[in-house]
C-alpha cells in the first residue's frame, strides 16, 4: 500500500480530523449561546447569589470547553493538563486567599488608620505593636 491515507488507519485519522472541524464549529456556537445567556442572566430579577453562582458556573464551563477542545487538552498527553492546572490552581488559590484576607477586616486603607503622633511612634529598630484596627464598617 503506497498511501497511508488509503489504509484503514489513515481513513480513521482523516475521519477523526474532519470530526474535529465539526466539533470546533459546534463548540463556537455553544460558547456564543452561553455568552448570550450570561448577558441576559444579569438583568433577571433573581437573587444575587443565584446570578453570581450562575455566572461563575457558566464561565467555568466556557473556560473548560476552550482549554479541553480548542486547546486540544482532550487529545493531548495528561502531562499538559497537569502542568497547566498547577498554574491555574495556584492562581485561583492566590485570588481566593487575597479576597479572604481582605474580608476578615484586618486590612484597611492607610487613610483610615489612626494618626500616629511623634510620642507614640516607636524608636527606630524597636519592635512595634500594630495599631488597633478601626471598628468594622
Amino acid at each position, binding site marked *: 500500500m*503506497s*498511501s*497511508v*491515507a*488509503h489504509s484503514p*488507519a*489513515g481513513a480513521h*485519522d*482523516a475521519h477523526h*480530523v474532519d470530526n*474535529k*472541524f465539526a466539533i*470546533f*464549529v459546534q*463548540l*463556537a456556537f455553544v*460558547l*456564543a449561546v452561553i*455568552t448570550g445567556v*450570561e*448577558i441576559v442572566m*444579569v*438583568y433577571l430579577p433573581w437573587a*444575587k447569589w443565584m*446570578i*453570581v453562582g450562575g*455566572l*461563575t458556573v*457558566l*464561565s467555568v464551563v*466556557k*473556560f473548560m470547553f*476552550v*482549554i479541553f*477542545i*480548542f*486547546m*486540544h487538552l482532550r*487529545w*493531548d*498527553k495528561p*502531562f*499538559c493538563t497537569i*502542568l*497547566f*492546572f*498547577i*498554574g*491555574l490552581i*495556584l*492562581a*485561583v488559590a*492566590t*485570588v481566593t486567599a*487575597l*479576597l479572604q484576607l*481582605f*474580608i476578615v477586616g484586618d486590612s484597611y*486603607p492607610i*487613610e483610615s488608620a489612626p494618626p500616629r503622633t511623634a510620642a507614640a511612634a516607636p524608636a527606630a529598630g524597636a519592635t512595634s505593636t500594630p495599631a488597633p484596627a478601626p471598628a468594622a464598617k
Partner: protein
Amino acid sequence: MSSHSAAAALDHHHDPTTSTGIPNKKLLMWAFLASDCMFFGSLIATHLIYRLHPPADNMDPKAVFAPALTSFSTFILLMSSLMMALAVNAIQKSNVRSTRWWLLGTMLFGLIFLGGQVYEFNEFVHIKKMTLSNSILGSTFFTLTGTHGTHVAIGVLWLGLMYVRSFKPLQPTSGWLGHALLHVVTIAGFIVLTMYALIRLLLHVIVAEEPMTYGQYFAGNWWAIAGAVLTFFIATWFAKPRGPVAFNEYNAVDVESMGLYWHFVDIVWIVIFTAVYLLEFI
C-alpha cells in the same frame, strides 16, 4: 508518500523524540501559560479587592462601563478562537492555503477586538473622565484590561509573522528575508492605516457630538484611506504563490503553540468579562 498521506500518518499529539513524548515547543507554551495564569490572577484579585472595598470617592462602574460593546468584543474574541482552532486543524492536514485564510481571519477579529478596546478606553478617558491615575477603579481596570489588550496585540503580531512565514520558499533565495520583511511592513501599514481611518470615521463622523460630513472626513483623511488601499494591493502582490513552500504539517506544532497562546488570551477574557463587567450590573 504524498504530503496528504504523511499528514494522516503524523501524530500531532505525540513526539517520540522527547522524553515526555510532548513536542518541546508545546511543553514550553503550556509552562508559560501556567505562569501567565498566576500573573492575570494577581491582576484580577487586585481589581476585585478594590471593588469589594472601594475608597469613599471611587467612581461608579455602572456609570462608566458599557455592557453592549463588551459583549460584542467577547463574541468577536470567541469567534477568533474558532478561526485559530480551524487554522491549526488545516495545517495538520497540510492545507496551507486554508491555514493562511484562517490566520488572516483570526488577525482581523483580533484587530476588531483591539479597535473596540481603543474606542472603549477613549470613551472612558475623554467622556467618562476615568483615567489611570484619578481613581482606584481606573488604575485597576486599565492595568488589567490593558495588560490583556497587550497580550492580544502580541498575538496579532505573532499571527502576522506566522502568515508571512508560511510563504517561505522550499529553496530560500538570498532575497527571501527582504521579501518577507517588506511583506510584514505592508501588512502592518495596511492594519495601522485602516484602523486609523476607521477610528477617525467612528469618532468624528458617526458618534461625535458635532459630527463632520463625509466630505470633510475624506478631505482630512484621504492619505490614510489611499495608503490603506495601496498597502492592501502590495500585500496581496507579496502573497502571490511563487512555487512550493517550506510550510506544511511538520510546522503544525508552531501554529498549535501560537494557537494555545491565542486561546489563553480568550479564556482570560472569559474571566474578565464576568468578573469585571457582568458582576457590576447585578
